[in-house]
């Protein structure tokens, strides 16, 4: 039996008076890639941000239910969100590099996590930039401002920044939406490699991408989890008509 790193139990989320997530339950096994798919506005980002407590910053959002990470409830008041986020990293939907140099963008998280030795830092920066397939493009100009990179390069920098601190889970919100097919392929390759080290939850609008890399796929619709299971089964024999229609583009 596979081990469940994350267990989401009957999760409800309200943004103001709006009921956004309506009782989501799903188990996320270790060292796999889990794809979240579903039409725009169905709550994928909201679900992802619940897992690393990003909603703490927004007082309008209320969450009910449980998210167990290694058996401990993430949403519990006594769980330290700072510690939690060191174990559960995130890449946001919109690239958000710091207005600092490329090098410093990656260095920041390392320093925050207590790495002091500059040689170690340099190695770690190089490694993670290589893993996110950005190294070759920026190795000559690590001191350049990250804001001068293209959107796709910025997103890969954010990925590098997230994996540099070696979390156990990485949450990715449409990391490839601004990437060309070649960089997308590179990032996918990276994710498949990183699966050995991390558990990956990825939101994507690209169904082919889910099919290519995900072990499990979850289909969400209007705040509900319609279907969740092994990717192959999901794409070949969906259990729900709604899923079938979405996967075949008969929607709306």
């Amino acid at each position: 039996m596979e081990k469940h790193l994350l267990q989401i139990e009957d999760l409800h989320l309200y943004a103001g008076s709006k009921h956004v997530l309506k009782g989501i339950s799903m188990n996320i096994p270790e060292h796999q890639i889990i794809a979240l798919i579903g039409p725009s506005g169905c709550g994928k980002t909201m679900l992802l941000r619940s897992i690393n407590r990003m909603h703490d910053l927004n007082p309008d959002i209320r969450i009910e239910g449980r998210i167990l990470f290694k058996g401990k409830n993430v949403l519990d008041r006594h769980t330290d969100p700072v510690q939690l986020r060191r174990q559960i990293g995130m890449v946001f939907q919109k690239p958000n590099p710091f207005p600092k140099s490329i090098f410093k963008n990656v260095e920041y998280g390392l320093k925050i996590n207590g790495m002091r030795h500059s040689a170690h830092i340099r190695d770690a920066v190089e490694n993670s930039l290589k893993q996110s397939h950005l190294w070759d493009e920026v190795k000559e100009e690590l001191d350049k401002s990250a804001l001068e990179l293209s959107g796709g390069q910025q997103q890969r920098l954010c990925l590098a920044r997230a994996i540099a601190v070696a979390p156990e889970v990485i949450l990715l919100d449409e990391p490839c939406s601004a990437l060309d097919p070649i960089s997308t392929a590179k990032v996918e390759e990276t994710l498949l490699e990183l699966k050995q080290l991390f558990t990956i939850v990825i939101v994507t609008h690209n169904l082919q991408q889910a099919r290519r890399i995900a072990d499990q796929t979850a289909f969400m619709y209007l705040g509900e989890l319609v279907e969740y299971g092994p990717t192959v089964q999901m794409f070949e024999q969906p259990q729900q008509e709604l899923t079938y229609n979405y996967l075949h583009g008969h929607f709306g």
Partner: protein
Amino acid sequence: MTSRRYFWNRFFEKSLAVSAFVSIATLLGIFLLLAIHSWRAFERIGLGEFFSLNAWNPAAYDTPSYGIGALLLGTALTTLGATAIAAPIGVGMAFFLSEIAPLWLRNLLKPIVELMAAVPSVVMGFVGIVLVGPFLARVFGLPNGLNALNGSILLAFMALPTVISISEDVVQAVPRAYKEASYALGANRWETLTRVTLPACYSGLLAAIMLGVGRAIGETMTVLMATGNATAIPQGFFSSVRTITATVAIEMGEVPTGTTHYYALFACALVLFLITLTINFAAERVAARLRKRGQ
């Protein structure tokens, strides 16, 4: 229909152009007035003497002397002091208000800060004489507390509302996405504040400080009352100093028109005008660079 709208569009365009022209013309007019009168002073005194450390003693019976060195130093000293006090307090306060303070405290403090701006400069000068002065004299064991430091403290207080409110805008303009990125990497609130939010607004804060202090330089009444007004070369913050503004304000009313002294005061005003213009211009440049980077 269209022609009427056209008319009004043209009308507003033209009136904007006129008002822009009027303000530029006024500025230019002031500059020319000062420059022409100053020219007389420079002719008679000589630039070397004017910018020298010789005493400012235009009313002397036998040999009047016109060095503004000491006055410039007095202005520089009070301004620097005011900056050194207002910058950390103003920026710290802005950060506290927008990032740390709970809502109720913020709602309590904001109006107080705004009220600070409403204190007339004469009242501040008064405070300098009856409160700050005796306090400084007591703490530092001085014969009296009317000195550069006193002026600096008061000017800092007057610059604070500007520094605080502009800094606060700057801090709040930092995109939320930067903070989220920092939190998502496992940074705590303090790390996010000092290593992400603060560096992201350096140049904006610089502009806020310069605008606050630029305003303070012109505060004649306060400095005039609180700094002791000695025209000697200041030795430090405990020296009594006289600033350029104070000099013009004190002497302009009594000086006979057309004398060298009279023109020398215009030259003082010209120097002051150029200093504040430079500071405001520099602050604008910094702010513009910031806006460009924000896009």
